[in-house]
């Protein structure tokens, strides 16, 4: 059963997700979005009709997360082909190029190509965040792609410097943040994973995050995945964000980094493996939560998967969220 909004005392940890959610279920449930995209590509339905299906699927995945018992959900990024192009294709100065492998996965994204000065033209995310929030029983976080990651995964034909491109993107994406806050969004999460692969760029990364998130009147999160942030945790903790999200599955060194340090922010505790179909047990999750609670107090914990859940089939994603919530309740001594 979904928990009613605001359930639990402030002493409790909360459960959440990192971003995307599988867009289609497996048989016997129909793969509606996949079929609608095919039909749109064949000219059998209009873009408006496709948007209608995207709306319905968004509601479906929000309800699925809520049904699993997740406290703060996302819209599943149902409309996004990948973490980069959804926002990038709507900026001036950007074209979308060929397929590239996404980090160390066997999934691919179309590479943004920077052909001129990047410029924000109009709000991209707010309309869909509003739609999601209006149809969600739980608070919905807005997901904003991080400027450093966007810069690192793009082909830069204009700035000639990752620093300049990162800062330009941060400055322009600030308009997204401001429109989200103005619309009443309370949870804004910036997904900026590539820094864990390029730790030497932490200075550029930090400058871009500051430009993007300084003095934002909402809870702000900064999530990484697929690796550990152990040697850059100190500078991350100095950034103007409320939540730092770390992947404890692919980055076991994050455990070591947490020890012997006051963690003054909230921790996005990426404990459920978003990249493997093996479903954790509630006992495993509860055990890990107890372990991390010695280092970060429970009221400053978000329990979440290690990354977006699109790497596993839909049914596995749902099972994993259910188990995660059950593990979190167990860790708090609440009967499941």
């Amino acid at each position, binding site marked *: 059963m979904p928990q009613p909004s605001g359930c639990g005392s402030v002493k409790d940890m909360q459960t959440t997700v990192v971003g995307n959610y*599988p*867009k*289609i279920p*497996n048989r016997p449930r129909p*793969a509606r979005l*996949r079929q609608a*995209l*095919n039909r749109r*590509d064949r000219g059998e339905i209009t873009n408006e009709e496709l948007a209608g299906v995207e709306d319905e699927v968004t509601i479906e995945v929000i309800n699925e997360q809520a049904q699993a018992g997740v406290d703060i959900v996302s819209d599943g990024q149902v409309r996004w*082909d*990948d973490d980069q192009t959804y926002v990038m294709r709507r900026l001036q100065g950007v074209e979308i190029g060929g*397929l590239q*492998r996404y980090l*160390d996965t*066997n*999934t*691919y*994204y*179309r590479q943004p190509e920077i052909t001129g000065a990047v410029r924000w033209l109009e709000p991209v995310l707010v309309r869909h965040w509003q739609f999601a929030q209006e149809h969600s029983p739980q608070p919905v976080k807005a997901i904003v792609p991080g400027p450093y990651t966007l810069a690192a995964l793009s082909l830069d034909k204009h700035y000639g410097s990752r620093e300049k491109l990162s800062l330009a993107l941060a400055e322009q994406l600030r308009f997204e943040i401001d429109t989200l806050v103005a619309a009443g969004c309370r949870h804004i999460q910036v997904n900026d994973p590539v820094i864990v692969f390029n730790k030497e760029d932490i200075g550029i990364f930090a400058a871009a995050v500051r430009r993007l998130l300084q003095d934002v009147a909402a809870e702000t999160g900064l999530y990484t995945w697929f690796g550990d942030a152990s040697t850059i945790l100190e500078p991350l903790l100095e950034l103007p964000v409320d939540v730092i999200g770390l992947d404890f599955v692919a980055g076991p060194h994050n455990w070591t980094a947490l020890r012997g340090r006051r963690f003054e922010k909230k921790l996005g505790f990426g404990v459920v493996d978003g990249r*493997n*179909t*093996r479903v954790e047990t509630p006992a495993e999750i509860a055990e890990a939560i107890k372990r991390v609670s010695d280092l970060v107090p429970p009221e400053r914990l978000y329990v979440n998967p290690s990354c977006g859940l*699109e*790497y*596993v*089939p*839909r*049914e*596995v994603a749902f099972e994993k969220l259910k188990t995660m919530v059950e593990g979190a309740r167990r860790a708090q001594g609440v009967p499941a």
Partner: protein
Amino acid sequence: MSALTTTAVGSYAKPDYLTKARTEFSQGKISREELGKLERRATEFWIRTQERIGLDVLVHGEMERGDMVAYFAGEPGGRTIGGMKLGGLVRAYGNRYYHKPIIFDRLEWPGPMTVEMWRFSQSLTERPVKGMLTGAYTMVEWSFDEHYPSRRDAVLDMAKVIRREVEELVQAGAKYIQIDEPAIHTRPHEDFDLAVEAMRVTVEGIDAEFHTHICYGEVEKIYPDMLRLPVKQIHLAFKNTDFAYLKLMEEHAYDSDKDLGVGVTDVHTRFTESVDEVKEGLRRVLKLLPPERLWILPDCGLKTRTVEESEAKLQVMVDAVREIKRELEIE
């Protein structure tokens, strides 16, 4: 066959009747035997086509395989390694989805998986047909692993399974065995030693000539490390990157004990390169290595190209090689 040997990488397009039959088989409408008959018919077509075009070493075309990993992991009509099955759909990109395999138990060789088809293909022709397998690292990397405590454990067990299949192929008479590792550069720093070790487990001490195909991805991150792979030949997709790998090989010499497989036609374009264009590529590679150490092939498997496109691409490749041989007076 001593200089500029021509061959292909593995897959070809399936004729429509076979695609249809595969669907019918997965719906239970036709038997495995009926499907097998059509697979053999299509295989014979590709063997004859390659002979007619004039390739030196042939591939059987992979008419029986849908995907290079899934065929061994639960694909309908495939031969499934013990401990593997297909999972639900996951998205690869855009609106493309696939059934990603799952390792759910200890990996076990299930009996010969590729020998019957190899034997059939070889029986059709005097020219050598390569045995075709997917390497252990790629098999594991492109699957979920629910069973093993570490990737290393899974990869090394998988290598033992693949080795068993290699032994069967060699026993059946295969002289050339190609072990594809397109995922080998996924974690170049963390995992390359493991990939090399897995290849060693797969081939060491077995009397056959081993080739490996590594396509796309960041080859520069694993060069010259890739030269540690215990194989006689590595082939790379040169054409797709406009022969940029030559630069790597100028910086660090290519292994003197290995042959180099050179992809000279792009498999992702519909149009056919001209003979002159292919010859130009050949000349560039010939500056680096002598003809007897070069094998000439398309960049990758041709299954995404139509029959006509594939034939055309193979034909310009063979024609270009013939002309170059004549010009250089090599036989």
